[in-house]
């Protein structure tokens, strides 16, 4: 197959040759590797790559993926990082409108009942990063099937290895995995990745944020053992009396189907509660294993059980070891429309959190994540909405371990296609109910679900943010409902199309609804529990009047609470030549127009991760219903 530039213009092409999305479990060669938290099956490709920047597709080096291409004129760029923050392209912050506002006229293809050709493949604003990485395989990966995983690339990417086209991916915030086996060599591999800032996916990724592009999350090679657990699907349940656990797991293997699987579940004292030895098959099911008197997981006591899966060859050799921690917890809506966790009313003391680092943009580090978790714990924040895209994988593990309730949101926001200057005007809305846009958004739901489905911390799947609502978002809801009975779905935008409320969202959600209007809903026989998926807009000196919301928690059990907008200011650290200081800059400070200027900074934290004065208020109010 050959790469085709027109895929950028076609919403029906969003993944080519990608490995299907699967669970995010780690795997090791043996117990010592697990102890050291380094898997010899994994080879990181992070570091400096060769790089060429082109302002548009027409000026890009078309043949750069060929093995005889002379890339001596290329620069170097660190991977992961944002192209803009390496000063190749202009930083731009814009909220609801598209970044090309006032520069290029665009309507989403098919939205006005007609196909539009060349919107992005022929566009003068579609910057291109041409990345080349030369690498040798680590000895431990040689002779194996080898995959490559890109954990996050904005926004459309073509991949070649040793001159052969490998695949294409959109959806910037979920892993894209390709099989390199047919073209891989032990030495002197040439990996070529072409990253486009825009494609039809740009209409689905109109989040209120700095608009970046590039390989901004880690890239790694995976060597596959002879038999490999490719997908782990845990479905732990809690019995109706909230006493016992029921362990269910489906294990999907690739490679040789001989040998055996040893599975253990241990509590925190190392006591084995479940021990199974099963013959290997492409699918291994362990179902309805009753574990008496389990310790339930919640914010106060995030108790996790240790699952250990050993995959053995026919001769008994350990082929791979999969450790995974999971908890037992049950989330449900009772007959009174109250959300319960483990039989008790759940109260969300939440924040929305963009991934942000004032120096690195969205290419955040584990240090940033750990610091954020500590801030949550210090200030009684018990929940996070991953606004408005899936986060880096380690974040979900940290939330499991620290009892942070997660509203796991899809990578979807098409704000500029339905709201203009504050008015609702959905005439060119996507995904809407347009068939050509349906599979792309269902795929986003699938990737989010399949990747993170084993994380105990996720209580809610959020279909996306501010995308209006039509049949396609209803189809995303249906996807979750047909795959997962253990969590609730959330979507706010259905307030604009109430006729779809039956099909979309288990929760009634209305962002920034003033307290008196929230109360009006709660007083009038609520059909669904109510959540403010965004409230207390923390722009500048703000967070006044929070008590009016918190009071409602005492009066109305159907009020689930809310997620403050938002956790951290989006501002970039820049050296100011006039004052000689390192200073924080926001939208418009880079000559970027059209811009929404200081609206990029709505955090409870300043961009340097120090708390705003309002934090003591949040700590107090969130401490009232811990």
């Amino acid at each position, binding site marked *: 197959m050959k790469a085709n530039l027109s895929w950028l213009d076609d919403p029906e092409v969003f993944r080519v040759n990608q490995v299907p999305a699967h669970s995010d479990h780690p795997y090791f060669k043996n117990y010592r590797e697990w102890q050291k938290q380094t898997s010899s099956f994994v080879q990181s490709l992070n570091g400096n790559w060769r790089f060429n920047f082109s302002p548009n597709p027409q000026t890009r080096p078309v043949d750069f993926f060929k093995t005889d291409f002379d890339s001596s004129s290329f620069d170097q760029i660190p991977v992961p990082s944002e192209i803009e923050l390496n000063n190749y392209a202009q930083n731009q912050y814009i909220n609801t409108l598209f970044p090309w506002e006032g520069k290029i006229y665009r309507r989403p293809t098919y939205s006005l009942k007609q196909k539009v050709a060349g919107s992005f493949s022929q566009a003068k604003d579609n910057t291109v990063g041409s990345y080349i990485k030369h690498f040798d395989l680590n000895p431990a990966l040689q002779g194996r099937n080898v995959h490559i995983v890109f954990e996050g690339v904005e926004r459309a990417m073509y991949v070649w290895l040793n001159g052969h086209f490998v695949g294409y991916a959109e959806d910037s915030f979920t892993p894209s995995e390709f099989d390199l086996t047919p073209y891989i060599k032990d030495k002197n591999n040439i990996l070529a990745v072409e990253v486009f800032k825009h494609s039809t996916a740009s209409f689905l990724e109109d989040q209120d944020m700095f608009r970046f592009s590039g390989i901004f999350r880690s890239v790694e090679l995976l060597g596959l053992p002879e038999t490999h657990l490719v997908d782990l699907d845990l479905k732990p349940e809690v019995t109706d009396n909230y006493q016992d656990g029921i362990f269910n797991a489906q294990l999907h293997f690739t490679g040789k189907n001989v040998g055996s699987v040893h599975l253990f579940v241990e509590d925190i004292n190392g006591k084995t509660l479940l021990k199974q030895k099963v013959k290997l098959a492409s699918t291994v099911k362990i179902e309805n294993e009753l574990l008496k008197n389990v310790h339930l997981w919640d914010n106060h006591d995030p108790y996790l059980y240790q699952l250990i899966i050993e995959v053995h060859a026919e001769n008994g050799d350990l082929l791979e070891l999969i450790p995974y921690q999971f908890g037992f917890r049950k989330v449900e809506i009772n007959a009174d429309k109250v959300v319960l966790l483990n039989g008790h009313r759940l109260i969300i003391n939440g924040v929305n959190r963009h991934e942000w680092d004032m120096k690195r943009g969205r290419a955040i580090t584990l240090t940033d994540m750990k610091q954020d978790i500590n801030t949550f714990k210090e200030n009684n924040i018990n929940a996070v909405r991953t606004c408005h895209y899936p986060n880096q994988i380690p974040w979900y593990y940290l939330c499991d371990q620290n009892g942070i309730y997660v509203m796991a949101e899809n990578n979807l926001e098409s704000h500029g296609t339905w709201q203009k200057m*504050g008015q609702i005007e959905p005439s060119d809305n996507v995904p809407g109910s347009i068939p050509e846009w349906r599979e792309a958004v269902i795929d986003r739901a699938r990737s989010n679900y399949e990747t993170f489905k084993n994380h105990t911390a996720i209580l809610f799947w959020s279909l996306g943010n501010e995308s209006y609502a039509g049949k396609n978002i209803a189809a995303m809801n249906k996807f979750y409902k047909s795959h997962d009975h253990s969590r609730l779905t959330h979507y706010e935008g259905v307030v604009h199309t109430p006729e779809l409320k039956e099909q979309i969202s288990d929760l009634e959600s209305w962002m*920034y609804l*003033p*307290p008196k209007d929230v109360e009006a809903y709660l007083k009038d026989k609520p059909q669904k529990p109510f959540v403010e998926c965004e*409230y*207390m*807009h*923390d*722009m*500048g*000196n*703000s*967070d*006044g*009047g*929070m*008590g*009016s919301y918190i009071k409602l928690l005492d009066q109305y059990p159907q009020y689930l609470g809310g997620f403050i907008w938002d956790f951290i*200011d989006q*501002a970039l650290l820049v050296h*100011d030549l*006039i*004052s000689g*200081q390192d*200073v*924080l*800059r*926001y939208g418009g*400070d880079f000559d970027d127009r059209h811009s929404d200027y*200081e*609206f*990029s*900074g*709505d955090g409870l934290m*300043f961009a340097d991760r120090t708390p*705003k*004065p*309002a934090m*003591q*208020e*949040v*700590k*107090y*109010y969130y401490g009232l219903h811990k």
Partner: protein
Amino acid sequence: MAYTNNLQVIYGDATLGVNTQDKQYIFSYERGGLESLKIRGKEWLYRVPTPTFWRATTDNDRGSSFNLKAAQWLGADMFTHCTKIQLKVDQHRFTELPVAPINNQFSNHEFAHQVEITFIYETLTTPQTKVEITYQIDNNGHVTIKMHYYGKKDLPPLPVIGMRFIMPTLASGFEYDGLSGETYPDRMAGASAGTFKIKGLPVTKYLVPQENGMHMQTKRLTITRNTTLNNADNSNEDFNLTVEQTGQPFNFSCLPYTAEELENATHIEELPLARRTVLVIAGAVRGVGGIDSWGSDVEDQYQIDPSQDCEFSFRLL
């Protein structure tokens, strides 16, 4: 018991001076206020204190167009119009200001046990309203300052009602007995009460400089400086001014900038070099709000009603 008049009153030609054991006051008839407050030889005032009505627009104020509605108060804050001065020394109420030739009757040995001087201001708003600031110096030499704002119908909504003191040099810090952190009427539930020592004059680093640093419900505040503008004063020793509640606790901010200076900057690094101390004592503080930043106003009970009178007082030690 013998009664002693401790206040020496200087009936000047453009000012009224009051000398006490460790304080010297000069009230300027021309500038319309307290021109000099010297405590143990250190000057505390750069210009006369004035009523203050403006706060640097917050993001929420901008989003709800509060700044557009309240804009008249910006002019009223920057430009003060003193229309009348009333003087009372002990029981004697002067019907006319005692300038020449009236003051020809006095000497350098005029003593009293109480001096009360009131400055009456008219606001540059439509409609106009009146503000009175009264300085009452007691026989111990302490001054109690009372400000009265006269409410009037049809005035635009108010950002703040307070008094602004500008001090000649930067304070090295302040200590107060009140609430922790930066507080506003609608954001003070989470604060703890206590005594807090603040180093320097921190400006909260909101991306766009705006109203910041308010401290609600304060009983006592002590500002410490160690520099003066006096060329003959080489000392670097600390010296203090204390503000104390009289009836009700007071609200204050202590920053190196006026509301107008904050208003003019789009980034924190654009603020002028910090060189003075700006103390605002506020009788009425508007909440900051937070429902959203694009239309919702501060909740009703945290807005300042311009049609209502507002009076507050405090004492300087």
